């Protein structure tokens, strides 16, 4: 955080129009924008000007985006949000597994981007765990391991609860299959995505009003799941 109190965002994209757009659009929301057009420039700027958040385009001309994330993660945990296009699901997963906090698919709405940025920052800012998590009708009491929907308690299996707890801890953020599997089942289960699917399906049946149009547990196709945070 700088003296001015404005959070600083490093925008890394080789397309000047995108950088210009973000500079213009983020300014009114209280962000100060620093720009970089290449991976090299991004690494240098990240180290010298210490931004509070990085928006990183995966399609940089001079280096693989995942590599950039890995290099940054060597020395800092500043939130990184990846900008990517459709059809790059594997790259997104790789970026997330390498330490990126979230991703936004181009073309994106500014509202969506700002929400992701807020979530990513909050994750770092509020380190104290809220004992009770609420979104919509869903209430998760982490201290008492109680889950209610519209005031009615829901019985969950230990695995289902473990998944829900993981999603709540990173609420609003995307979690890859691998991340959830490792968190819930432990190392060695990262490939067993069908375990996850079945449990998510069961969770939805228990929590969602309409499990085909989920309100809380959102599927990020090809990437993972996200617990939506309703404002």
């Amino acid at each position, binding site marked *: 955080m700088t003296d001015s109190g404005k959070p600083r965002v490093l925008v890394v994209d080789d397309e000047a129009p995108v950088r210009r757009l973000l500079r213009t659009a983020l300014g009114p929301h209280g962000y100060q924008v620093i720009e970089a057009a290449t991976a090299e420039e991004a690494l240098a700027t990240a180290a010298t000007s210490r931004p509070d958040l990085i928006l990183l385009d995966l399609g940089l001309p001079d280096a693989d985006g995942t590599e950039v994330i890995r290099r940054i993660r060597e020395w800092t945990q500043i939130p990184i949000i990846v900008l990517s296009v459709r059809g790059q699901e594997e790259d997104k997963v790789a970026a997330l597994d390498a330490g990126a906090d979230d991703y936004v698919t181009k073309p994106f709405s500014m509202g969506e981007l700002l929400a992701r940025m807020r979530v990513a920052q909050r994750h770092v800012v509020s380190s104290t765990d809220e004992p009770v998590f609420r979104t919509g009708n869903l209430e998760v009491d982490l201290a008492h391991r109680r889950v209610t929907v519209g005031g009615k308690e829901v019985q969950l299996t230990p695995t289902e609860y473990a998944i829900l707890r993981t999603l709540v801890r990173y609420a609003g953020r995307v979690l890859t299959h691998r991340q959830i599997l490792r968190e819930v089942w432990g190392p060695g289960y990262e490939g067993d995505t069908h375990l996850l699917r079945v449990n*998510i399906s069961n969770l939805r*049946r228990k929590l969602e009003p309409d499990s085909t149009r989920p309100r809380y547990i959102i599927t990020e196709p090809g990437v993972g799941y996200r617990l939506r945070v309703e404002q």
Partner: protein
Amino acid sequence: MERERPSPEALLSLAEVEGHRRGRLTIFLGYAPGVGKTYAMLEAALERLREGLDVVAAYVDTHGRPETEALLSGLPTLPRRKVRYRDLVLEELDLDTLLRRRPRLALIDELAHTNAPGSRHAKRYQDVEEVLDAGIDVYTTLNIQHLESLVDVVAQITGIRVRETVPDRILEEADDVKLVDLPPEELLRRLAEGKVYVPDLAQEAMRRFFRLGNLVALRELALRITAQRVDRQMRRYMASRAIAGPWPAAERLLVCVGTGPLKEQLVRAGYRLASALDADWHVVFVETPEHATLPLEEREGIARALRLAQQLGARVETLRGESPPQEILRYARTHNITKILAGASHRPWWQRLLRGSLVDWLLHNAGAIEVYVISAPVPKVEPTTRPMMLRAPVDIRSYLASLWLVGLVTLISALLHRFVDPTNLTMLYLLAVVVAALRWGRGPAVLTAVAGVAAFDFFFVPPRLTFAVSDVQYLLTFAGFLAVGLVISALASRARDQAEAARQREAHTATLYALSRELASHWELPRILDAVLRHVAATFGGRAVILLPAEGRLEPHGPEDLPLEDVERAAAEWAFSHRSVCGRGTDHLPDARGLYVPLQTAQAVRGVLGVRVDDPARLLLPPQRQLLEAIATLAAIAIERAQLAEEARRAELLREVEKLQRALLDSVSHELRTPLVSITATLTSLTEGDVRLDEPTRRELLLAARLEAERLNRLVSNLLDMTRLEAGALRLRWQPVDVEDLVGTALAELSAALDGRRVEVRIPAELPLARGDPVLLARALANVVDNALKYSPQDAPVEILARTANGWVEVEVADAGPGIPPEALPHIFEAFYRATGSRGGVGLGLAIAKGIVEAHGGRIRAENRPEGGLRVLLTLPRWEPDGASAFHDGLREAARLGR
């Protein structure tokens, strides 16, 4: 001399001569080896070189003469082609290098040379012709005795029969003939001094050749031929300028080639006569029904003579008929022939007496046409091998059978002779002769006649059981019986031969008919080729191949095991490029094992048909060649038809594709521009607007622009997906797929389009997981649902159902729209297809869905619902439950029970 306008024919023939865009041929003509032809040629060539012409000595033999070698060293020389033949290495003219080098003038020695086996042409003069055709001038040398038409004359003078010959037309068509002369005495002196090259092998023969008498005669011959040539040039010159000449109206000579030893000699004599008279000349051969029964050698001899005639420039015709004299006379009358040349009959006197002779008949009936007869008995230069009979070899059984027949008749006669006068018993024997003639042919019939006479004499003529004859009048009976028997056998066997010939012709016709009928029923090239190859192989008893041009070379189509050696390929290519028959039994590449016939139509040469007869000794005879050429014509027409049809089909296809592409471009550009219209309009009205817009209007405009931007994004994604699908660049990340999740993702993607619409989803809880790429499958499903939303009424719900079907997971998307006309159903998954009454879009959505589902090994299909509307069914593979899956199936079960 008065000047007249030249006749069109004269102009035409002159134009033909001048119209040749080929190289000029200069022949240095001598009367014997050693007169200095090569020397003269080199001197002339050096003169050209000094004038600045590009001269190359392509093949010159100096035979080690120092002065000739000195001349040659002043000229650029082409390396020779080395040919290995048995133990020898022969040196030949390197034709291909010469053609590549393309000098202005090439020196090629020894025009009459016979090329080593395996060369492209059998004779060097054919090489020279190809060089001339390529537009290169040629200097060459020739000795007079090698001239085709003079072979007989030279043989009479020198007693040596020359084998290396050059057709006379080469000399005639030469642009320049330079006579290289040397008095015979001088030549003999040079010979004595060892200045004339004499090959070691033939020294004895050469010594006989180099005799003063011979040389004088040959020299005269050379001078006369050159003088004749000059004379003809003079006439041609005068004709072209319409100078009326003293020459008589054109003579037309007809040469009748028949069987017998005179064939080729007749042709040469005809040529000389025609040249001397400056006459048109025709050579005819009358093919009678007996022709098929002639010995093989005889028939090949006829074919050779006719080929020779063609080479010498005659118009050659093969006539068909029963009676050669009548056919010849009819031809002569219709072609205004003024002179007929025929060979004296070679048959024994008694046959001539029996059948008459051609010459006698012509002499009596020719009327105003003059008849020339040549009868020179030709000394046999080489012993001919015994003629092979084409007919089945003599079957001893038929002779035994005829003897048996005579025995039977004798037995019957023994029973009858008490009641019948012995003379009348001969009738029974004659009956036996007739039977034998009809059943077994001439030989057995003659045997029957002779044995019959003997048996009759022995058993029935007193004194019986002896061959003695008491009554002289029986001798008359014998003579009569024998004569009648022989005549009957001759007539009967001829009837058989005619029937045989007719059968053969009929077989040919039947072959052609069968082939043409089969070809007419095929339109595809491979089946046409197959039919032709089958017919040719069956008809000629060998293997056949068809070569069709493809990418600049000939591609063989035929039996896999038929190897095509270089010679064969060269022969086929020659036949193709020169549009004439080539290979075995012809003058071009006779070393090839196959005979190659161009497949020629009026438009073009479509390929080459090759036949390789199994029996290596057998050549194709003229009637068979004709049949083969007829088959080739049929095949060429069929191939051309198939190729044209294919071309037409391709052109049609191209037109269709172009039409489609145009429609597609129109549609895509329309779809891309429409969203841009509202986006641009919104943005401009916000930035340039003079009037301040109120807040609700601003919002409305911006919302519209946002929706259009999303639409544009979807369209671009679809185009990219389609491109990826079509490029095969789609990579599947196989994962277990929860159908409920899939539906949820698809619906989330369509949130804008779903605004206010009802979607009913019914998925059984126990539905197994599908197997596939969740991202791609969600996109496929979204496209199908999007389509359903587009076509169903605003208030009607779209239903999404899922079930298992035969071990697959089936997802159904049903709408309550108007459905699709049945004829359009098969097409709705085609890219850029838009059914009548379709609403917006470029028609990519369903095509992408199909591409994705099929990439998963699944199926997609559409059908109209009985209650109205369309349903699309996506069938997806199931996630195979291995150990872990079984475990989570248990989990799922537990969860269901716990609810």
